[in-house]
């Protein structure tokens, strides 16, 4: 079995290095194919491992070599394949295989074709390390590696200034969270003596809740940065500057879910500190609502989907916070499938529209891009949580968990957000595919994507539809490690009412969206009353948070560093050093004119000398005379 573990882990690395060889050379078709094949082989080996774990196999544990070993610290390159990591491996490798194949078509006009695959495979490799590592340090390697690759991929089209700015912003914001994570790691090490998962979890039981709370908070800060939770969320919307396959893979399916994976992986820690769990759940619920509200009014197709990802992440954190770890993991898996599908569909539309992103400038694409329309509609249905599709099984279970745990506020917020989600996703679908062909005004003639790209997207489509089926076997597999509690609502009646109620609520929201945007004809140019209303402007500018960050963090930082350099470093520190040197020089200069040969000045200096001597004589005379009294005074002062 170790063989498959190594294949799953190192196939992406091999593909990344292979395509890295060709970065400088122009586009090579086979680079894309070879990369996709290697990622596919990683997917196959993950599938085999899944099979092994599903039929009750022992989690495979492998230790390659020591990484750091000083004093009491011993960190090996250890990898483990257990229930949680095998699910994540499945999700990551499946989605990345599809995205690799998709991007062969999507990027075929791009000059940096080979470089793109190098970065993408490097991303998959660091994601695999993150997921499969058996200790927090290995997790941290993957954590930063993933941040690095997202920096490279967001800033892929580095001739665009916004893209590189967005890449830097993403990297720096992740680093802020990684600092919290690092402190969490130190806390774990110094309190438990090891960074290995088993050792740490075993030791957590004996620790007092105060340290545990601190560990929980700091690790969650790390998760917050990576999964773009509330204060550190602005980078996700800006990250849409990267190519769409990147957004599909990184900012929908894999990287952003790393935070959730961390919380799930350290479930034994968070189950010991329920109050931190509650905080995580409430923050998750808030972010869900917060992101959904912003998506309602946005006029950029990819940003709408990014906000929906943010909202769904909120759902996952809510579930994880409440202790329903397996539900969070299941929703993570299901969400990855239909969200990636949605993004790739958006990629097709973008290609057809020559990189036009504003849905209001499209419309009636149903006729031209039939398959993409079907796929995006089904994905949106799954996202909204309509019965047969994946979303229903994962999202509604979260609502059940919240209801069972008697957190009514969180339940209410999540329910309301479900409605919002349904509304904005179908607002998007309606604007793009239905209504009048507004794109004709701009003289664009769209065409359906390449056939093999659509075929590549088909597995996602199938999974989006049937993922619900896996809920039972998934639960039974994960139950033993995640201590999954089956959420029995006492009476079946309330369960049914709840389920049917949400279905109706969501259905109404969809119909309303279709009614409102189905037959949209004009391209709003900011003149209408609704667009100038306060709420619209507030939501459109993302509650002015990016503006606030720019104004109250970035600008002062620039000014302070400018001041520090010009004023402090040059004027104070440097000047003081030169000042000392200057002092000696000027002192020398003054005493020089003593020997200037001018007799009268010399005489004056002589008399001055006499006076000094005389005064010394007087002083010492007095001191000798009154030494008794003087000592008394001085000792009084405690000298």
């Amino acid at each position, binding site marked *: 079995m170790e063989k498959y573990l190594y294949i799953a882990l190192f196939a992406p690395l091999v593909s990344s290095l292979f395509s890295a060889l060709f*970065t*400088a050379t122009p586009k090579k078709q086979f680079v894309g194919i070879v990369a996709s094949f290697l990622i596919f082989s990683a997917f196959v080996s993950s599938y085999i491992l899944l099979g092994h774990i599903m039929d009750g196999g022992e989690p495979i*544990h492998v*230790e390659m*070599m*020591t*990484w*750091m*070993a*000083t*004093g*009491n*610290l*011993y960190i*090996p390159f*250890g990898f483990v394949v257990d229930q949680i990591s095998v699910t994540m491996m499945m999700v990551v490798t499946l989605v990345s295989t599809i995205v690799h194949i998709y991007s062969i078509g999507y990027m075929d006009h791009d000059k940096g074709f080979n470089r793109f695959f190098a970065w993408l495979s490097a991303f998959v490799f660091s994601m695999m390390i993150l997921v499969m590592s*058996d200790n927090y*340090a290995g997790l*941290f*390697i993957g*954590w*930063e*590696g993933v941040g*690095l690759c997202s*920096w490279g991929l967001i*800033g892929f089209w*580095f*001739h665009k*200034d916004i893209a*590189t700015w967005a890449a*830097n912003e993403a*990297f*720096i914001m992740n*680093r*802020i969270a*990684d*600092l919290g994570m*690092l*402190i969490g*790691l*130190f*806390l774990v*090490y*110094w309190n438990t003596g*090891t960074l*290995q998962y*088993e050792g740490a979890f075993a030791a957590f039981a004996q620790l007092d809740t105060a340290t545990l709370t601190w560990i929980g908070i700091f690790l969650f800060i790390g998760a917050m940065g990576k999964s773009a939770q509330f204060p550190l969320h602005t980078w996700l919307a800006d990250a849409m500057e990267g190519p769409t396959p990147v957004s599909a893979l990184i900012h929908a399916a894999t990287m952003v879910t790393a935070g959730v994976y961390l919380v799930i992986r350290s479930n034994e820690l968070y189950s010991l500190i329920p109050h931190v769990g509650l905080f995580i759940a409430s923050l998750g619920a808030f972010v869900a609502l917060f992101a959904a509200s912003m998506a309602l009014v946005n006029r950029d197709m990819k940003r709408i989907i990014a906000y929906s990802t943010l909202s769904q992440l909120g759902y996952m954190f809510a579930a994880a916070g409440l202790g329903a770890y397996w539900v969070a993991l299941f929703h993570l898996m299901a969400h990855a499938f239909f969200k990636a599908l949605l993004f790739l569909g958006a990629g097709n539309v973008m290609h057809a529209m020559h990189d036009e992103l504003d849905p209001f400038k499209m419309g009636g694409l149903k006729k031209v891009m039939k398959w993409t329309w079907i796929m995006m509609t089904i994905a949106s249905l799954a996202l909204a949580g309509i019965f047969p599709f994946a979303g229903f099984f994962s999202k509604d279970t979260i609502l059940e968990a919240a209801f069972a745990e008697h957190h009514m506020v969180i339940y209410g917020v999540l329910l309301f957000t479900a409605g919002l989600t349904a509304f904005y996703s179908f607002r998007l679908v309606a604007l793009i595919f239905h209504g009048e062909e507004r794109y004709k005004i701009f003289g664009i003639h769209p065409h359906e994507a390449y056939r093999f790209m659509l075929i590549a997207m088909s597995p996602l489509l199938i999974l989006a539809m049937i993922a619900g089926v896996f809920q039972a076997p998934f639960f039974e597999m994960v139950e033993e490690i995640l201590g999954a509690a089956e959420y029995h609502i006492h009476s079946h009646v309330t369960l049914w009412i709840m389920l049917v109620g949400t279905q109706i609520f969501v259905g109404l929201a969809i119909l309303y969206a279709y009614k409102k945007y189905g037959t949209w004809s004009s391209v709003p140019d900011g003149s209408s009353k609704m667009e100038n209303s306060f709420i619209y402007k507030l939501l459109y500018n993302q509650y002015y948070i990016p503006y606030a960050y720019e104004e109250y963090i970035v600008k002062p*930082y*620039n000014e302070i*560093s*400018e001041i*520090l*350099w*010009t004023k*402090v*470093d040059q004027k104070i*520190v*440097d000047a003081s*050093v030169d000042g000392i*040197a200057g002092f000696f020089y000027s002192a020398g200069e003054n005493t020089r004119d003593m020997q200037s040969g001018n007799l009268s000045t010399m005489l004056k200096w002589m008399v001055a000398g006499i006076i000094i001597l005389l005064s010394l004589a007087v002083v010492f005379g007095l001191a000798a005379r009154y030494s008794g009294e003087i000592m008394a005074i001085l000792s009084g002062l405690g000298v």
Partner: protein
Amino acid sequence: MLDHILSILIFFPALAGILGFMIDKKSIRAYGIAVGFVEFALSLWLWFAFDSNVSGMQFMENLPLIPSFGINYILGVDGISLFIIILAAFFTMIGIASLTKTKNEKNMIITLLFLQMTMIGVFSALDAIVFYVFWELSLVPMLYIIGAWGGPLRIYASIKFFLYTFAGSLVMLVGMLFMAYFFYQATGTWSFAILDWYRLILPESFQLWLFVAFFFGFAIKVPMFPFHTWLPYAHGQAPTIGSVILAAILLKMGTYAFIRFSLPLFPDASVFFMVPIAVIAIIMIIYTAMVAYAQKDVKQVVAYSSVSHMGVIILGTFALNVEGISGSVFLMIGHGVVSGALFLLVGVIYDRRHTKLMSEFGGLAHVMPRYATIFGIMLMASVGMPLTINFVGEFLSLLGFYEQSHILTLLAGIAIIVGAIYMLSAYKKMFFGNITKDENRELKDVNKRELLALIPLSIITIWLGIYPKPILEPINNSVEAVVQLMHNKSTTVEAKERIPNVSGIVISKTSTREAH
């Protein structure tokens, strides 16, 4: 031959330098590279013959110089100093190999060989006076390199560098003399051997004063916060090779001396001064990082970044436990490699465009892809990405210091954020965006000679990031010996519990496989 290898390592470059005068101008470069290569081979042999399980000094040499005052020529190398010696030899070889066309190249190469002698001398000397002699001698060749081949303000920069460091080391000399006098008072015999001094237990009040005296000498060399203003001038004006050697090796003398002198000789004073020095280190980290962000000249950015990294090294050193100190020693080597490479990279672009202003560059990635990738690797190493050499050092230093105080480490941790900010913004200004200046349009990518220096450095950065064990193991053993010595020597209670009793910790090397 083996037991005199250190003396050979020191005086071979000096002899070769003298012979170099006879070599004619055209073949001086080949001669330089040959000498550098032989020196590097010798240092590799030293590493090969070095037994990493022994934590004490190896290859000791002892030759009485002034017996009446106990000043003898003692050399020795242990885990801490071994790798910096190898780094010095390596960088001199690479420096000479990648030397661009400079006027009177012969003198440059001979000065570099002398500089190498002094550098290796400092790191292998175990007698205070011999250490001091090499410490001062290392200033002289550097003075010439900056003064003769430097930029417009070179005279000011070189004199400032020389006088500043010299003033500090005079205070250090006074400290050494006092130390010898106390040793004489205590044991009745004069001795300047550091190993004898290790056995001397001083009362805390003496330790405090001596620590301050040594602190001045080392703080200026590191350079620590208030004394760092000579570095930007020195780097700004020094030629590429000068900056490389200055950043890679000379800055390490200060921190190495802290571990060799201040910590073991004055354990109580180190504990007493730990918090103030940590505060200075944090100021160093954040303040210089912000100043680096405000720079217009890319070489100044790298110069200030090395001050920021030295802050982390000082923090690691004053963590006073095995993880912290071995982390700081490792970061010394890591920073040496990374900042040396960064200065070489700056040199590459300087030779093409003869300007270091970032506003002059833009969109270089289009024109120089290989240069961009190597710079990217070094950027990531300097920012402290895992699987690069700096991460191991920074991680261990911060981890070590976390034991001493949580809040200060949190503040120091901001290093990784501000570090990312200034490095990424510099990278963005230089490499991303479209080519605005037309001189940039037909810039040639890195040529073979530059690659000869850069490829090995990148390989080391990645290799030591992934598998630091061969370097970390000897460092760990020697550091354990130092920490154990400090624990036994410390008199005050606070020092006893701050410095862990190393022998007490059984290194749980049992890998998890057996644990199952």
